[in-house]
Each structure stands twice: as structure tokens, then as C-alpha cells.
């Protein structure tokens, strides 16, 4: 079956925001937001490094809660303990923004056609059409 056609009314995207949690509760909240976010995030580590990627899972319970990412470069996954996270920045494009059915219908015909053409051209370039 297909996916849902309708999505939520546009709300402020988190793109560009940085969360530097001061407590475990704030950290959990930031991680939940990152888990729901449909773009890459950059995780700043307490060790001083940082990782950019798609945060696709989190395990908030247990002795050592963790997050899991697909790094934007390279293959495989990366698991990071909550305790290592210093900050989370929403650095990637929010791929869900502006993609609602309502937003699409509300666009001018010319805008919609341009979007359709762009998607088609991208698919052709990948050999998917």
C-alpha cells in the first residue's frame, strides 16, 4: 500500500537549531527531536569530536542508553552512548519540510510542474526511469 498522502500542516522546522542539553531530561528531549527529524544531525561529542549523520534509533532505557546513526559519509552504523553526547545540531536539510499534500496542492501549476520535472530528471539521471 502507499504511504499517507496527507501530512501535518507546516510547522517550524528544527533545521539550523542546536541543542546543548544541561540535564539528562533535556538530553532525552533533544534526542527524541533528532529521532523524529528527517534530515542529518551533527552530534558533538564530549571527547571533542563530532559525527554527522542520520539518527535512526535510540535506546533510552537500560544501563547505558545509546543513539544509533548512519554517518553521512562512509558505510555502516555508529552507536553513541547518551553519556558521550555534548550537543546535537540539526545541520541537514529537513527533508519533510514543504512536502505536505496541502503544500503541493497550494502551489501554482507552474511551480508544481517544475517540481515534477526536477524529480523526473533526478530519477532519470539515476537510471530509475
Amino acid at each position, binding site marked *: 500500500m502507499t504511504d499517507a498522502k496527507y501530512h501535518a500542516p507546516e510547522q517550524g522546522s528544527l533545521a539550523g537549531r542546536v541543542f546543548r542539553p544541561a540535564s539528562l531530561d533535556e538530553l532525552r528531549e533533544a534526542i527524541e527531536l533528532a529521532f523524529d527529524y528527517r534530515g542529518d544531525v551533527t552530534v558533538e561529542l564530549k571527547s571533542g569530536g563530532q559525527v554527522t549523520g542520520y539518527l535512526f534509533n535510540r535506546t533510552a532505557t537500560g544501563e547505558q542508553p545509546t543513539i544509533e546513526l548512519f554517518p*553521512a559519509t562512509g558505510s555502516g552504523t555508529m552507536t553513541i552512548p547518551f553519556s558521550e553526547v555534548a550537543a546535537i545540531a540539526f545541520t541537514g536539510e529537513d527533508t519533510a519540510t514543504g512536502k505536505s499534500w496541502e503544500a503541493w496542492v497550494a502551489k501554482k501549476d507552474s511551480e508544481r510542474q517544475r517540481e515534477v520535472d526536477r524529480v523526473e530528471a533526478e530519477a532519470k539521471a539515476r537510471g530509475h526511469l
Partner: protein
Amino acid sequence: MAVPVSQMYTVTKYVLTQKLRGVKRYPLVLMLEPLFRCNLACAGCGKIQYPDHVLDKRLTPEQCWAAADECGAPIISIPGGEPLIHPEMPEIVRGLVARQKYVYLCTNAILLERKLDEYQASKFLTFSVHMDGLKDEHDLAVCRDGVYDVAVKAIKAALKRGHRVTTNTTLFDDANPERVRKFFDEMMALGVEGMMISPGYSYQKAPDQQHFLKRSRTTELFSKILSNRKRGWQFNQSPLFLEFLMGRREYQCTPWGNPTYNVFGWQRPCYLLQEGYASSFRELMEKTAWDSYGTGRNEKCADCMVHCGYEASAVEDTFGSLSGFAKTVKITLLPNAR
């Protein structure tokens, strides 16, 4: 008959075996998503909104077969993304068919005709073509003109080569019952084996309650569509699920009936909600708070009547009681009987 006897026998045997073993929660259909990349960008599609490096990820054939073995469901539905984009899809399907799994390869059919040579016709393989209505409705839903015609041509070509073909249709609150009935006529005239229908429902991220089918509206819409149905219409679904859509039966969700495996792992709790991922099927089954999901239990599930949650409930009803079984037989033979 919409489904071959061998498939009905396999499913019946599987369900009865689970019951005899006292298994309370068992999967019926594995939703295997080998990639999220698609060659369409339907407005608001919740499955393709990821960064490019995620869209480029694909499950390997070995991962797909391992998921099928681990899960054990007799039916495997392969949605996506667009599965036909996956370069190893023929190999994946061959491996699943070799395991005697009934595979429903869900496709928008844009690539189907040119890929047909790569697939051998089998009772275990069905192309489930996404069709959201007649030409106007479908092309609007997929945001590209001409896709309906391409799909119809591909369906004819697949049928000509002896493939099993079904359609799958998602209906929203703007559906016109008369147009949907005409669409059913068109699909059956093409010669498809059966049709699958379901109300659309939002992903947890974006429940726009203004437009999603509320339960009362869903039952009203499906009653108009399915009442006095034509005898020639064949549905590739449980008759009791159709009764449920019409508001004639009440079910609670059976989210473990259609587990989903994709590049992120085993999705909790279902195809529609993303509450996290388990690394194994066993972990999914044992460590998911199943009782926290379903209508009346979770606000995210309030109006959901989608097949992935309730088709398995209908199957459970069929095999769980004599009255359910009798009702299924009756509706199968006399679809318009009350």
C-alpha cells in the same frame, strides 16, 4: 477466486499451526522494505523523506532472506521505495520464492514492463501494482501525468506473460465512491487477480486530522463503495477486513501481524509508526510494548483502520471462532449478505 487454493491452504495451515502451538502473537505478512528510494515523489509520501545517503542504502539479498527466515511469515510484501529500482531485486525474489514464500512485489509499475524478463512467473510471485484510482485520481496522487497509462500497459504485459497481478489502492477523504466503483470495474476488466484497498493514514510525524479519514467517515465511505458490490469484483483481502472497513465489525489492532524490516532494522511497532527499531525479530516481538498501540490505547492510532494493523485481526477472527469462520465463508460466497 482471488487467491490460489495453494496460498489459502498455506496460510490456513500456518495460522492453525500457530494456534495449536499456543502462539499468541504471530506474523502473517512480513513487510520487507529493501530501500526507500523511489522514482516518484508523491506529495507527502512519508517513506521517501530521508537524506540522500539514507535513500541510497539497500538491503542485500542475504539480509532479505535472513529477515524472511527469522520472521517465518508465509507471505512477504515488498514495498519501498520502489522495489524495481533495486538492482538485486530479481535475486531477492528468487530466493524468497525458493523458500516457498508468497511474495507480493509492490510497484508503481513505471519500470515493470521493461523488467518483466528478469522475473519468472510463479504462483509464489504477485506483482501488486499501486493504483490509487482512475487516471485523473491516480496521476494526481502520484504527482505525475501519464503514470496510470504506463501502469495499465505494464499490467497487461505482466498478465500476458502469466504473472499473477493484483492492485493496491489507498483511499483518502476526497475519494468519490462512484469513481472508485468504476475503477474496480476497470481493474477487473484488465484481468487482475484481485484488488487490495485500505484507508490512508498519517505517519506519526504528521497526523493532519483535518484530512485523514476519521473512523466514522471511513466506514461511511467504504460502505458506499462496497455495499451492493458487483460479483465480478475480487478482493485479495480477508472478507472480514472489508466488513470492518464498512463498520460492520469491530477489531482491535494486531500490529505484530505485519512486522516491517528495512535498512534501519525491525520497525516498532508497525509499518506506520516509527517508535524505534529492534535489531532482531525476536527482540521486536519480545520487547515491544504491544498493548500500548491500537485504537483507544494510543492517540497516534486513534482513527487508524489500515490493513497492516487490522487485516491480521480479521484473519485471527476467521480462525479464532466458529462464528468468525462461518461469517467468512458466508461473505465469500455471498458478499452482499448481512
